[in-house]
């Protein structure tokens, strides 16, 4: 393949998505392939790692190496891969349930560990794949089959958690604006360390009212802050559906514990002599 000529289509696998017509995740797929084209990555040098959920189906649709693993476990699998194969471009992807609910512990520890990879959270504020139970980002009074009267639990604020936990790049984007999303993905991949992009991605089947998001987005209401504290304040004060990059940190990426003053196998054998 001529490197200079890579197009978004070069990054589509041809596998037909199981997504509902109109699902926001199509836009993410499209933006991701655009980003890869802009970065002019070789498809075989990319790996997309995910958990389980509608969003987490994305690896198979990308022409790249993919690992469609376990619900909640995209981040450790992605970290293991990136640490073992540092030359790869590693993307982790999943839904709000996958990353923030069952995967919450890996999320905060990935932020603090700061491996050089990019996480895309496709937030639809619902469990799509299991047909409409509330997720950590679902509003407390939103009625579902499981809770006809709502959960009465405060939603989780993924971006603020990412900031506090130490992510090195934090942004929110909207799937309905795939060029912007592609640009943010490009920046996130380029930025060293762990990058988090929360993508507002409507579930048209179980939350049809999210189709309206396209009219409600506060485009680029978030801009890179000077400190984590400012970034937190910006997230707290910005409109609910704001997009933009809010944080670009400069922590060095984690590439493993490095030299631990050890000996090689052949040299360590002496230590066993009585």
């Amino acid at each position, binding site marked *: 393949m001529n490197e200079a000529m890579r197009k978004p289509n070069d990054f589509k696998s041809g596998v037909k998505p199981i997504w509902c017509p109109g699902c926001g995740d199509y836009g993410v797929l499209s933006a991701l392939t655009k980003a890869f084209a802009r970065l002019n990555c070789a498809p*075989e040098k990319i790996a997309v790692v995910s958990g389980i959920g509608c969003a987490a189906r994305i690896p198979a649709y990308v022409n790249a190496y993919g690992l469609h693993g376990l619900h*909640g476990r995209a981040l*450790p699998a992605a970290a*293991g891969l990136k*640490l073992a194969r540092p030359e790869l471009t590693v993307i982790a992807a999943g839904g709000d349930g996958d990353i923030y609910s069952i995967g919450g*512990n890996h999320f905060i520890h990935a932020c603090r560990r700061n491996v050089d990879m990019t996480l895309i959270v496709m937030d639809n504020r619902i469990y799509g794949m299991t047909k409409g139970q509330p997720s950590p980002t679902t509003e407390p009074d939103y009625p579902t089959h499981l809770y006809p009267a709502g959960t009465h639990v405060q939603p989780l604020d993924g971006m603020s958690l990412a900031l506090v936990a130490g992510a090195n790049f934090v942004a929110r984007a909207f799937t309905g604006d795939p060029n912007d999303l592609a640009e943010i993905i490009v920046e996130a991949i380029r930025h060293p360390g762990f990058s988090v992009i929360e993508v507002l991605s409507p579930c048209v089947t179980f939350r049809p009212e999210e189709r309206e998001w396209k009219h409600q987005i506060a485009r680029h209401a978030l801009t890179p802050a000077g400190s984590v504290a400012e970034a937190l304040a910006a997230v707290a004060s910005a409109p609910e559906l704001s997009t933009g990059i809010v944080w670009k940190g400069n922590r060095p990426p984690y590439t493993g514990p*490095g030299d631990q003053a050890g000996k090689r196998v052949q040299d360590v054998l002496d230590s066993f002599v*009585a």
Partner: protein
Amino acid sequence: MSDTPQDNAAARESVSVAITGSGGAGVITAGEMLLAAAAHAGWHGIQTRSVGPQIRGGEAVSMVRLATFPVEAHDDAFHLLVAVDWRNFDRFAAEVLLAQGGLVIMDKAAGDVPPPLKERAGKILSLPLSKAAKEAGSRVNMVALGCIAALLGIPESSLEHAARRRFAAKGEKLVEASLAGLRAGRDLTMQEDLADHIANLRLDRPEKPDKPRWIVSGNQMAGLGAVHAGVRFVAAYPITPASDLLEWMTPVLSAEGGMLVQAEDELASINMIIGSSFGGVPSMTATSGPGLALMMEGLGLAVSAEIPVVVVNVQRGGPSTGIPTKSEQTDLNIALCGMHGEAPHLVLAPLSAADCLFTTAWAVELAEALQAPAIVLSDQKIAQMKAISDPLPLPAVKVARKVSEACAPHAYKRYALTEDGVSPMALPGTPGCMYTADGLEHGENAVPSSRAEDHAAMLEKRARKLRNHDYGPAWAEVNGEGEIAVICWGSTAGPVHEAARVLAREGISIRTVSMRLLSPLPIEALEETLAGVKTLIVAENSHSGQFLHYLRAWCDLPQEVISLKHAGPRPITAPEVRRAVIDAIGGGRMQESNIALKEAPVS
């Protein structure tokens, strides 16, 4: 060795010593130095410890067995017990049985001898151990060790060698102090009239080995085996008794260009190594029961997506948090059957501390060759045992994953239905082969499929690749002939081998089968091996007989089956195995059915 443990041997081929005392007394150090000195002098032996629940400052026992021949397990009684104090000794009483007529040496200030000991002891000697230590400017454990060495006949040069190795890094002053303590101990002993006991305790001279012997623990050997076999990525979460395996590995891996990552939990560690192995790097984790429980979902993914990973599970007492510091062989069930769905995979078990080297390396070889997860069932006993061993050769394993070359777009089939069931795996970076590994059922091209045909084909493929592999002779150590066989797995091999040795000298020949490969169960090889056996004794350190029932589930067993089992802190001992064999020969116990299993009496 005799039926009722008692101390009446003449010239000793094997002697067992326990040193007990509360925290800070340094009984573990004394035991380790005794072992080191004996190794230096050419004996064989092992040393284990048992500690109370206190994190520090709790009571402890150091148990040492020395012999003129290789040993892998303790005898069931101790010929010499040295007590620096008696604090909470009842906690260990069941683990530290004094041989009838054995010698007890105690510090003068230690107070009353626990009554059961009093009854069994041939002699109880109160010596001013701590006083002598103070006078020598040393510590009480060194004085105790000096006594012991003198009684057993350990050369002073070897003792000095051990002391120097132990304390050199901490300065010459400490070395000198310890030597002074050792001498003080020797002198104390010599002042007493112990001729009978000395004669009894003194070890036969060993044959001097060609090369200096090693002292190894199972955890070290497992780490060595893994790194030698090519493991370069380890993610793990600390847990007793696997943590020291991890601690051994970190620096070695870093020197070998690999790494060990401490994960936030076991869910992360198993998924991290799935990620790294997907990337082509042989990968491992180590854990114990509770951690293994958390890894089962990940292992199921490794089965389905066909990603090789190795889990060294160092068993401890269960269920739940159980008894973290003691050994048991009760994670067999979960290791064999702990995944949901049909999930064929590898389960192996090292037979001794030294064998952890080969078995772990072999597990890496098999996992990589078969693109399947392998669980290595070590246990606390061998993992934390210190064992004298001839220098171990690095095993000649062939670690090679079948990988795919670059290929034309859309041509690659990750899960191709090959004859042997193993499909060439494309590693990220290989042009043209881009695919998505999946825990969802899939077709040959890795695309998810819920079709009955695809499911059946993949289930069969994943079973076939394990079933049809040629595992060679390493599946078990098989020894001896006879109509009575003892079968065991993992660390119970030690006592079984020793019982066979003793029985052989008594003119009784038995067959022993010590299994290293537990899954897939080598049914044919096993049935062949057991052909002609009338009575099978199944020995295992479990309460419900997990191993026995596993064998029954898959094999036709001999007519009479005797279950020799007990769980918990006391492992199966060689004398127990011997007794079970003698009882079986006694006969009158044959029975038609293998249902109403007999349970061998267990002391």
